[in-house]
């Protein structure tokens, strides 16, 4: 295996050639907030929180999909990157409905963690407060669209690992939303195996285990 040496914020680290830059960051002890990235899923570079500055590149590159190469010089904590990360997290908070105080994921939420990490003391863009829905049709799980940040981890885990293809993104732009089946209630989608992987990978409280039903007995597929 070819190994390459690169510099992360001035620190030299060695990683396998072609490995994602995130691996180099880890080796250098740098952790950046990530929301769409999941180590077991294909990367999509959508949340733009892991952007780093790569010497010679015209614009910042996402560390989750950019391949490590010999001699690269990365900066992970410049004022421009900090400003970008903070605003992106603000945009997410403003885009959905995220009153942490009344969220089941409060204290166990990657979005909340990211906000703390980037020092978001307040959201400076106007909150949009979109009218969204809650899908409580599944016997075991709940989908609260208000808390969905459209990271697509659930779509990918269902496609790539479970193979049930329950989820997809529908529409586009600011109207993009997560759908189950043909835009059906989740509980009505037969291909769902109730495996719970989507719930496990959800970074926020959008997909959660229902607390009003006991986990057993197993209701059967």
């Amino acid at each position: 295996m070819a190994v390459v040496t690169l510099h992360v914020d001035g620190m030299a680290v060695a990683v396998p050639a072609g490995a994602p830059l995130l691996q180099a960051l880890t080796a250098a002890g740098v952790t950046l907030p990530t929301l769409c990235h999941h180590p077991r899923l294909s990367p999509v570079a959508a949340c733009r929180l892991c952007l780093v500055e790569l010497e010679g590149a015209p614009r910042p590159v996402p560390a989750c999909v950019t391949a490590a190469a010999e001699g690269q010089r990365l900066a992970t904590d410049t004022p421009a990157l900090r400003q970008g990360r903070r605003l992106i997290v603000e945009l997410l908070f403003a885009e959905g409905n995220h009153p942490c105080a009344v969220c089941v994921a409060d204290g166990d939420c990657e979005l909340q963690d990211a906000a703390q990490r980037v020092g978001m003391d307040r959201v400076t863009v106007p909150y949009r407060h979109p009218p969204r829905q809650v899908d409580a049709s599944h016997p075991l799980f709940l989908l609260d669209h208000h808390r969905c940040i459209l990271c697509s981890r659930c779509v990918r885990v269902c496609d790539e690992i479970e193979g049930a293809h329950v989820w997809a993104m529908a529409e586009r732009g600011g109207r993009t939303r997560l759908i189950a089946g043909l835009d059906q209630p989740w509980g009505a989608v037969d291909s769902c195996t109730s495996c719970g992987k989507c719930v496990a990978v959800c970074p926020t409280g959008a997909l959660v285990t229902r607390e009003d039903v006991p986990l057993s007995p197993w209701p059967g597929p």
Partner: protein
Amino acid sequence: MTAALPPAKPRLRLATVWLMGCSGCHMAFLDLDEALVSLADRYDIVHSPVLSDRKVFPEGVDVCLVEGAVSSVDNLAMARRLRLRSRLVVALGDCAVTGNVTALRNQHPDGLAGVLQRCWGQAVPPADSPLPPLLERVLPLHAVIRVDLVLPGCPPEPGCIGRLLASLG
């Protein structure tokens, strides 16, 4: 003996304001319990729904803690007034910082009219009722006035409020 003492710091004028919120942040403030007494060494409480009887927001406030979001015309007027009369404004708690639960009504697809209909049905208060008219949207404090400090939490930890005031004093 007296020469050894540091010069006495000037006492600070503290106000607390309750906009649209559940009063939980003020309860958290009161939960400072005996620590409130030591705060009294540093602060004069010049306006507060829980620790003062003064109805009019005074001039020359040093620190103003603001609980709640801005939901009504009165809230808005009060927010502007307190800003003009305070040196340091602190958004206290999630409603003031983010809108929080108070702002959930913004999600109604028909806006304020839909909210009133939902709450009051046929009995929507007439326009000339003495109730303060609601704003179309609930806003966090920093959306309407300049805010110097934020102390989030629902409610914030009493200890945090105490440390904040101690550090300012």
